[in-house]
């Protein structure tokens, strides 16, 4: 079932010469885990905002053609509020996603429910279940501003998740996090994906995409340059370098060995594949 559909969508920020999304065409199915790659300024954030309805409703610019359909809703005809029951977005800075509406994590999570008129009787249940899912239930009475970056990002995820969206967008969610926080966020996202959420994640951490993503979409200059499996895209070192992305060290290792004609199979994208390949080389 298709939940996201871009039909030749063109978006133009005011004050810019070129269009920022230059005719994007793609479909994303329910339950997919999609990684977005691309150099900085290539339109990844604009793409994410287009799913959430921030483009065109909040951003300063104009739609130059095409449309975006989210779970049956045309984003140009629907408010962000309406879309928020279908899509949730998490951004880079953990702190700026906190609304400051609550003194405690619990209250911060409740904010969306209060706004959308969820009855009080149901609130408690939903908050409890979502906080358990992201592993913050024990911290619910703490201030959301006084936890680690990784935990703060989980507060953001919980606050969005509590509205029960089918689609979760994460725009460089681990940019400000240490390795522990990064691991925690990715494994939570994978768990949510296993429970049926559609995931769109922008990240430069290729090793996580190699492990978790079903599909990778490569952006440049506001266009989809390539759309394929992680294996297909991450092992194409030329493609990555051409688009200013550093390939994974394991892949480069494979490539170096391939040049010496010692590596026969596909280039590795995970440590496991590299180890298996090296065994064959050594033999």
């Amino acid at each position, binding site marked *: 079932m298709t939940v996201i559909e871009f039909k030749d969508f063109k978006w133009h920020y005011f004050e810019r010469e070129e269009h920022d999304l230059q005719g994007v065409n793609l479909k994303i199915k329910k339950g997919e885990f999609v990684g977005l790659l691309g150099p900085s300024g290539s339109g990844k954030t604009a793409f994410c905002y287009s799913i959430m309805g921030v483009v065109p409703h909040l951003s300063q610019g104009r739609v130059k053609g095409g449309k975006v359909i989210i779970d049956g809703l045309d984003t140009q005809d629907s*408010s*962000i509020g309406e879309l928020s029951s279908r*899509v949730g*977005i998490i951004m880079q800075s953990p702190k700026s996603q906190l609304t400051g509406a609550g*003194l405690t994590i619990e209250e911060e999570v409740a904010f969306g429910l209060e*706004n959308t*008129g969820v009855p009080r009787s149901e609130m408690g249940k939903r908050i409890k279940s979502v906080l358990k899912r992201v592993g913050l239930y024990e911290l619910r009475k703490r201030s959301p501003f006084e936890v680690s970056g990784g935990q703060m990002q989980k507060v953001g995820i919980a606050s969005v998740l509590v509205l029960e969206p089918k689609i979760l967008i994460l725009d460089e969610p681990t940019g400000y996090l240490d390795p522990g926080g990064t691991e925690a966020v990715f494994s939570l996202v994978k768990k949510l994906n296993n429970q049926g959420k559609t995931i769109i994640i922008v990240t430069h951490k290729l090793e996580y995409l190699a492990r978790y993503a079903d599909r990778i979409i490569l952006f440049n200059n506001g266009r989809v340059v390539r759309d394929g499996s992680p294996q297909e895209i991450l092992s194409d070192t030329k493609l990555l370098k051409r688009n200013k992305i550093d390939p994974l060290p394991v892949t480069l290792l494979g490539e170096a060995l391939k040049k010496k004609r010692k590596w026969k199979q596909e280039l590795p994208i995970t440590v496991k594949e590299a180890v298996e390949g090296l065994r064959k080389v050594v033999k």
Partner: protein
Amino acid sequence: MAFLKTNYIKKDSVIHSLNPLVKFSWVSLVVVLFLFSGSMTLFIVVNIIILLLAFLGKVGRDFIKGLVFMIGPIFLFSLMIHGLFNPFGISEEVLFSFYTINISLEGFYYGLFFGFKISALISVFYLFILTTYPGRMVTSLRTIGFPHKLGFLVNATLQIVPLMLREAETIIDAQRARGLETKGSITKRLGAYVPLLGPIVLGSVMKVYERTIALEVRGFSSTADKTSLYVENITLTDKLLIALSVVLLIIYVVFRVIG
């Protein structure tokens, strides 16, 4: 600046447990006095009552610290301006002279009056903020028909202020580590803080966009009837106290009109 409390202090006290609307009625009462009263005695009494309430609310120490920090400079300034120049004065009576400087009695009195007046207003707001749990405040404001966006604004502002102070501290520490001079003479110190404005203001502006998105994606503009995590029940005591504020207000108005 961590010593200065600018938001809710969790304590188990009578004042804390009052319905926020009671404290809101006190605020309204003092605002009316502030706007219409010219009696210094009245403002001194109000100040004393609020101070007593702050101690009853177990936040007396923080209350005094914060108040001195906020109104100390106002008092000094007010005494100086009025004492020296006596802008509203008619009498020329001098309280004391110092070389060529004359402090006029009337101006001095007016300076004191102005100080107590401001202090009453700030005190009542400060007491409200220190003893009222923000979530409860928003809920109860909503019950009397306050627009929820306004409630949020008040609430978020109260929470953002300490956050910004903390952020400023982080930046100051970082700058100090790079050799910024934040000690020494007043002018030197003030000068040193100027470069900090950049990062703080810019940082805040940049976060506004992301925060707007965060608010919107959580249905902030949704037209649904809002609900609340908390229920505010209003006890008999609360009702009596609110009635008391109303009665005091009426008495005041009657006296003003007759007297």
